[in-house]
């Protein structure tokens, strides 16, 4: 009997061709027609190859169920966790067995407690040390994501024995699940990567014709666990800012014939400082191997500036202790004296570290120059080249001590000027020509506002590189850009695409929930059916009601 009814439906108003058209509609319509109700911008972890060794995460696409740090079990789960809850051990476990990892950063990287900061540094270092096959993403803090993380943590308790069986069943039916989707293909190798080094100089003057050369170098890139999150205010924004301030100060002095020093000053902003000083390497090769010879071939010394606002003490890192009376040892003395004059608490120390030729990775930038037998040293406020603070996403503008940066700028400028003009223990920069704090602040704000990871800066016609070039052109002569391009057969470095993306978080229900919903709907429809059946009764009731009323009126 019901069969006839269905037949009648088809005859009446559900024509048979629906049986053909409906499947066609289903096939042609897109798979995921909704955009997720929660979308977050996410930043992918570093991925690069250095000297043939792969670093960072190797894949990008995610389409997995979200689980908490403690609730996951299979490679079909994407772990969503807050940075503070992730430990190095749990990360190692996830790296091997889970499907993907999404990390939410703390609300404010500036307000972290010292322990949290230390935790972040260690974690970042552990993550970047090796190759990771699963996709790893970072997301900035957002309240919605926070709710999702909390929700996922709650769902953990489904296996909790302390709850009653009924609660467990309800939980397993109605639990809010989340599906994490990052739709992107696997990251491909970038062919257009090139690392720019901007350099120029101001010529000195000496009546006897003997002009020496001082080279000042700073790398301008930064590094953190995710390229788009590495702002590198201190490492190496501070070095760049000091270099730019030195350019401004000395080009002003050199413009006047009377105050022209007897040193040529060569300035270079090198790229790829965080990937084994590739920019310096290429630039030095070009300069030393060029036919017509370069002035840096017989430089008095090469001064590298690296991370100069982390501490009050300034360390002068050398690979070979400078000989007594050499320009670098003189500079060291001037630096000590200037530091003592300007800020007595600031100490200057020499640190001697031999170049480890067995290791591919160099510690400090000056080692690139020392290898080629140029006298070189690095000025830094970090004592060890292994300091994690050089490679962290917590190195933001808010974490930078501007006063210290300005003080250190003053110390270095003063020491350099004293050596150039040969006036020991005399204050050179004073009222009329001094460090411009506004200039420094403007530059550091500008630099720390944009992520400056090597892969982001290595694009063609990069804006930051162009800005540097314009600034150099304003003050210096003979400004050039040297590009380091990885070798085709044996590349020193390789970058990959996809440094950021969008994650869609879908809230999903278990399949059982759908079945339960169907049962609910069927019951509802049955009740409705019975009600509609009873409508005549209701009508009769209404009739008798009005009839009674009329009787009363009559």
């Amino acid at each position, binding site marked *: 009997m019901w069969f006839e009814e269905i037949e009648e*439906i088809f005859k*009446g*108003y559900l024509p048979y061709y629906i049986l053909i058209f409906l499947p066609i509609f*289903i096939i042609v*319509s897109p798979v*995921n*027609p*909704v955009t*997720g*109700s929660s979308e977050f911008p996410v930043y992918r972890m570093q991925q690069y190859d250095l000297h043939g060794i792969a670093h960072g995460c190797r894949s990008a696409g995610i389409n997995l169920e979200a689980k908490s740090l403690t609730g996951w079990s299979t490679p079909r789960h994407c772990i969503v966790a807050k940075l503070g809850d992730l430990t190095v051990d749990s990360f190692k476990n996830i790296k091997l067995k889970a499907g993907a990892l999404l990390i939410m950063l703390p609300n404010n990287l500036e307000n972290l407690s010292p322990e949290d900061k230390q935790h972040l540094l260690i974690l970042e270092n552990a993550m970047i040390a090796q190759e990771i096959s699963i996709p790893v993403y970072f997301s900035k803090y957002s309240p919605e994501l926070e709710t999702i993380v909390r929700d996922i943590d709650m769902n953990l308790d489904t296996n909790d024995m302390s709850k009653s069986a009924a609660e467990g069943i309800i939980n397993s039916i109605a639990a809010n699940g989340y*599906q994490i*989707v990052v739709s992107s293909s696997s990251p491909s190798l970038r062919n257009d990567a090139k690392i720019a080094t901007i350099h120029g100089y101001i010529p000195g003057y000496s009546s006897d014709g003997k002009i020496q050369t001082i080279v000042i170098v700073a790398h301008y890139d930064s590094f953190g666990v995710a390229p788009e999150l590495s702002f590198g205010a201190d490492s190496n924004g501070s070095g760049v800012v000091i270099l730019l301030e030195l350019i401004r100060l000395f080009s002003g002095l050199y413009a006047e014939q009377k105050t022209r020093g007897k040193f040529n000053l060569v300035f270079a902003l090198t790229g790829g400082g965080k990937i084994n000083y590739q920019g310096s390497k290429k630039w030095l090769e070009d300069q030393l191997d060029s036919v017509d010879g370069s002035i840096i071939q017989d430089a008095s010394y090469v001064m590298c500036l690296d991370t100069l606002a982390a501490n009050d003490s300034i360390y002068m890192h050398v690979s070979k202790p400078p000989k007594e009376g050499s320009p670098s040892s003189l500079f060291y003395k001037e630096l000590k004296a200037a530091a003592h004059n300007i800020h007595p608490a600031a100490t200057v120390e020499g640190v001697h570290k031999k170049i480890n030729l067995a290791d591919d990775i160099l510690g400090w930038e000056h080692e690139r120059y020392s290898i080629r037998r140029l006298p070189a040293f690095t000025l830094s406020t970090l004592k060890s080249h292994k300091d994690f603070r050089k490679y962290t996403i917590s190195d933001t503008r808010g974490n930078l001590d501007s006063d210290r940066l300005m003080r250190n700028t003053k110390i270095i400028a003063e020491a350099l000027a004293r050596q150039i003009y040969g006036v020991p223990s005399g204050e050179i920069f004073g009222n009329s020509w001094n460090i411009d704090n506004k200039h420094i602040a403007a530059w550091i704000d500008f630099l720390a506002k944009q992520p400056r990871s090597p892969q982001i800066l290595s694009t063609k016609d990069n804006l930051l590189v162009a800005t540097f070039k314009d600034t150099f052109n304003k003050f210096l002569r003979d400004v050039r850009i040297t590009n380091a391009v990885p070798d085709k057969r044996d590349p020193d470095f390789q970058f990959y695409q996809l440094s950021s993306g969008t994650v869609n978080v*879908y*809230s*999903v*229900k278990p399949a059982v*929930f*759908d079945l339960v*919903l*169907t049962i609910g*709907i069927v019951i*509802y*429809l049955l009740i*409705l*059916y019975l009600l*509609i*059946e009873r*409508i005549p009764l*209701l*009508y009769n009731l*209404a*009739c008798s*009601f*009005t*009839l009674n*009323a*009329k009787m009363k009126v009559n």
Partner: protein
Amino acid sequence: MTLYHFGNCMALIYFPYYLTYKHSGLSEYGAFWKCIQAGLIYMVTQLAKMLVLATFFPDNVSDLGNDTIGEFLKSTVDLADLAGLYLVLSGIPGKGHSKVLTAGIGWAAAEVVLSRTVLLWVGARGAEFDWIYIQKCLESNILLVQHIITATLVWLWSRHDLKQNIRSAVSILLLLTSYKSLLLDLLISFIGASMWMGLLIKATTTLIYGMFTLVIYAGLAQIIGIF
């Protein structure tokens, strides 16, 4: 969520219409084409309403409560629905239950097909689960009752043999129909009720509304002798 969920929603939204059509005896009258006709008139009415709305009202998608007077005026345009229903009713010959029911069901079915199907097709089939689709389906069920009531009221109003006091009551009810959804939405947002609570409120008011109408209709039906 999935195609299965979409099926759930479709069953929930369209089955009550089928049941009403079937058990009100309309299928025996062969009123199917009349229902389609009502649907067509519904479309024309909506087009006319849209024209008016697009011409005279600024394009503000402000949420409810910001611009109550604007929303009120927009609801006034809904009076055109009543005119449309009147047109539908005048196009259906005969009198009595089937006339009113045909108009109401045709009208409501056209609305549900035109306004809900795409929403469900796009929304309920995606990966994301949201209760809103189930709620929309239940709301359509309430709307079915509402449209039958409105059709009844319009029919009552068009009768000349209605007593004056009942006539004015019918007029008031008709006017309220246009503003009912707005007033209810305001009430719901005012007391801050959840979606489910809101649905319950809508269902209850519609039922009370329906009882009133049924009583008036039954009174008139007995006088003019249709059963």
